[in-house]
């Protein structure tokens, strides 16, 4: 992880000087994480792919504004968060994005496995904010402080979202997990 960060710093420094090849390597290192984060957030492959392209394009255009190369991951996910929520707001303007627990089922099913489907269904029952908090914490491994930076919220808000989501997921998944994971 440390080596990866050091290599990222090197690539970022080169990309800031206009080195497209360095940026291309940087994209290949991060595209899977960004794509999966966006996919689970918006629930549609094509939209997630388009958003990923936009994220990396914006990152390239604004790379000079990144003050600390060590914070590249938070900064990149911040861009991804903004892009995803612009789309979610556009697609569902009537939905109040903070705290609505009833989100319509996503049309695209991701994995034809019972446990995966159960997880996906449970994630889709969360509000967008709660789901995003779980994605960043559980799947991307960010600390609460880093999440606060990405989402522009206090740490207390982040904790509250993650904990509330975990309670809902626990009710939905603990029985499935007992059957499927052990």
């Amino acid at each position, binding site marked *: 992880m440390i080596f990866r960060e050091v290599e990222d710093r090197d690539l970022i420094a080169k990309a800031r000087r206009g080195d*497209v090849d360095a*940026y291309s390597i940087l994209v290949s290192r991060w*595209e899977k994480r960004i794509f999966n984060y966006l996919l689970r957030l918006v629930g549609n*492959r094509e939209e997630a792919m388009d958003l990923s392209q936009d994220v990396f394009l914006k990152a390239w*255009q604004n790379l000079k504004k990144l003050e600390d190369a060590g914070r590249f991951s938070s900064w990149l996910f911040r861009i991804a968060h903004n892009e995803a929520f612009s789309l979610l707001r556009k697609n569902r303007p009537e939905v109040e994005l903070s705290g609505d627990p009833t989100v319509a089922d996503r049309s695209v099913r991701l994995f034809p496995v019972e446990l995966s489907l159960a*997880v996906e269904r449970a994630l889709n029952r969360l509000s967008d904010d709660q789901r995003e908090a779980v994605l960043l914490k559980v*799947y991307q491994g960010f600390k609460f402080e880093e999440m606060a930076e990405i989402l522009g919220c206090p740490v207390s808000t982040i904790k509250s979202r993650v904990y509330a989501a975990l309670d809902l*997921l*626990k009710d939905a998944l*603990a029985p499935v997990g007992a059957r499927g994971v052990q």
Partner: protein
Amino acid sequence: MICSNVDLKAYVLGEVPESERGAVAAHVHECANCGEELERLNLTHLALVSLRDEEVPRRIAFVSDKVFEPRWWQRIWQSGPVMGFASAAVLACAILAHGVLAQGTGRAAPPQPTSVDTAAVERRVSAEVNERLNAAVSRAVARAVSDSEARQQQQTLALLAAAERKYDFQRKADLAAVASNLDIIRKEQTRMFMASNGLEMRP
């Protein structure tokens, strides 16, 4: 009812510092309610992380877009020889200008600021620098274009060679298959001929 003095969710999510994890583990060992809650949380966490990441369906495909191409000033800035040449040109012009100024005023005499048209000198210097810089940039651009064309030609040739190898291999494989099929048919015909004439085939 779980105890309020332990944060089991933070514990499961890896947010409890290493120095405090032992205390939480010890408490869970003692308290049955907290132990059950921790088990439920662990199962939930395991179920969540069982969801695998998907591969990106296609490569992020904008690397060749115009927006990623360096601008003209970036190309110049990144070109070491051109920048070196430009710096040398500026330095040479500055020395030249200094020489003209010194000649106009005389070394022994004190400086006479009114005797030299500095604006004209600056214009000359500027024109000279621009001219040399433009020439250097044109050469660099021409070289870059020819390099790029050469690379593309090489790539095309490599692709053609690869395609030719592939088709050649396929043709040979097809011929081998045809030969094999003919051999089978021949053997079958022989077998049928022998059988119809009441003859036995040698093994």
